[in-house]
């Protein structure tokens, strides 16, 4: 790939620019809409340059939501989403790294069976088991709680499987050296396995945080009170039904804010994320 063909480079860049435009345009439209007044946003066609209402619109939704649709303040929703995504990401990593550690480093009866049981659940999406799960969560009185929002989503076959694969690349001699050095299993986990897994943990954190943040169906079922809405649910509730007009400038402001935390996580952890997915050196 050392050929110098200017027209090729040009056409390549054009395709890339086109791709970026396709991805960015809707976001730009959403951003513009979030800076307009109610009247401007409902005119056809909508203006394509940013308006003057940026601070007002965002301040309004953060403090007290929309006026015509849901009145839940978006600030509270963002907090709910953040708590849910964090609990899911941290909980998933904590549980799956420990179960992977058990499966790889301990010999116990039915070890293979346990692994395959975990592995098989990979094939069961949340939607399949959503009614029994709902029943259990409701019976436990966890409706409208953070525990109800996060617990059913925390067990993760994917993460367990990824950690298992990573642990299997750690040479056995490292565990043996640690045994001779006098480290017990948990000490070995804490002093050796965990530091070595840092990049894998970071990569999974990014994936799991975004996964938790974007949950829609489950929060829709287990939250009934406005103060427990997550921002993804909040957007939906702001879109007024029936003959009421929707305040699109406020919906778009909320959407923009819903976009920021996952993007921030990805951008901030990008370097670790890529290393975690490609790293081979042990």
């Amino acid at each position: 790939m050392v050929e110098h063909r200017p027209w090729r480079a040009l056409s390549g860049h054009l395709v890339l620019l086109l791709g970026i435009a396709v991805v960015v345009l809707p976001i730009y439209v959403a951003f513009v809409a979030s800076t307009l007044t109610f009247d401007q946003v409902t005119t056809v066609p909508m203006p394509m340059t940013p308006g003057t209402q940026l601070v007002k619109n965002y301040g309004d939704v953060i403090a007290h939501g929309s006026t015509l649709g849901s009145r839940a303040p978006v600030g509270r929703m963002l907090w709910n989403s953040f708590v849910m995504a964090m609990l899911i990401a941290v909980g998933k990593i904590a549980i799956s790294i420990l179960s992977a550690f058990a499966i790889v480093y301990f010999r116990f009866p039915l070890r293979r069976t346990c692994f395959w049981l975990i592995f098989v659940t990979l094939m069961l999406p949340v939607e399949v088991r959503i009614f029994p799960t709902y029943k259990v969560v409701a019976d436990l009185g966890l409706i409208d709680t953070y525990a109800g929002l996060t617990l059913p989503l925390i067990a993760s076959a994917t993460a367990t499987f990824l950690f298992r694969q990573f642990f299997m690349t750690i040479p056995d001699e490292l565990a043996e050296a640690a045994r001779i050095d006098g480290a017990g299993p948990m000490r070995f986990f804490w002093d050796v396995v965990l530091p070595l897994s840092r990049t894998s943990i970071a990569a999974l954190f990014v994936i799991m945080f975004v996964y938790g943040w974007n949950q829609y169906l489950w929060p829709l079922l287990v939250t009934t009170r406005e103060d427990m809405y997550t921002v993804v649910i909040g957007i939906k509730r702001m879109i007024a039904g029936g003959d009421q007009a929707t305040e699109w400038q406020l919906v778009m402001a909320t959407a923009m804010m819903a976009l920021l935390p996952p993007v921030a996580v990805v951008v901030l952890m990008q370097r670790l994320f890529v290393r975690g997915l490609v790293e081979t050196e042990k």
Partner: protein
Amino acid sequence: MAKLAFRDVRKSYGAHEVIHGITTDVDDGEFVVIVGPSGCGKSTLLRMVAGLEEISAGEIVIGDRVVNRLEPKDRDIAMVFQNYALYPHMSVFENMAYGLKIRGFAKDDIKARVDRAAGILELAPLLERRPRQLSGGQRQRVAMGRAIVREPAAFLFDEPLSNLDAKLRVQMRFEIQKMHRQTGTTSLYVTHDQVEAMTLAHRMIVMNAGRAEQIGAPMEVYANPATQFVAGFIGSPAMNFLPGKGAGAGRVALDAGGIVMHASGTVDTGKSVVVGIRPEHLAPCSAADAAITGSVELVEQLGADTLAHVSHGGAMVVARLPGGSMPDVGTTLTLAPDPARVYLFDAATGARIAT
């Protein structure tokens, strides 16, 4: 520092026995090398001493304790692995200090011990580096340092030089000898390389297929191999083996032709034996005295010596000749061994036939 003892040590996986009863003692401060081809059970034996493999039967004693039921950390041993097994995320200092830290040594004691080990192994300038910033030889020195700082009763080495290139291996052999001289710690060293075994060992255990074929000082094993296997494994280039039959007092008639004189007493006439002659014990002679007569097929000049590969009735015989001599390929060479250095082995059992 301590003695080690093996008492009929056995290892089996299910019904399949892989180590068939090893019994020997290792003296305080002795350097014992376990040598054998891959799959002979030498690493398994070492790992049983370390506590990484269970002992199926028999006893291993370190100091005055039977260690069969003890955890590796309680056996008072330190191990050096073939692939170094350094903790990649810790500095050289932390790697060496880790075992001490877990055992609850005081900070300044740890520092003093690591500094002393670093002095012995010339690691002082590297203490802050990470393992991946070190060369193979340096990594293995760190692994040795990790063993030294604990001042254990015994060092266990599992093929520590196999990942290094030839030149470094020679240098590290020297380092290991030096380290052993300075610490005087009882050491068990596993290798498949007979040169390492010959140069490092006070005594060596030659293993084959889960059995100790011979245990003894290197030169004793070299001069008096107990079996055909040991004779072929120790010494480089390997001993020549030629099948033959007893032909009266001090004579064996080779199947490929020629009579070999030997000093191993009388072999029953017609009894099948294998004649073993080391390349260095063959010398050119007159055609009348020749035991081996054949055309030169290949000549390897090593500088100090020349190796001549001679075809003798279908078999190849290697002779180590002085560096200056250069027989032409295709010419006929007549060779005879020193009768005192001809080894005879029972063709059926491989056992040495000695007077």
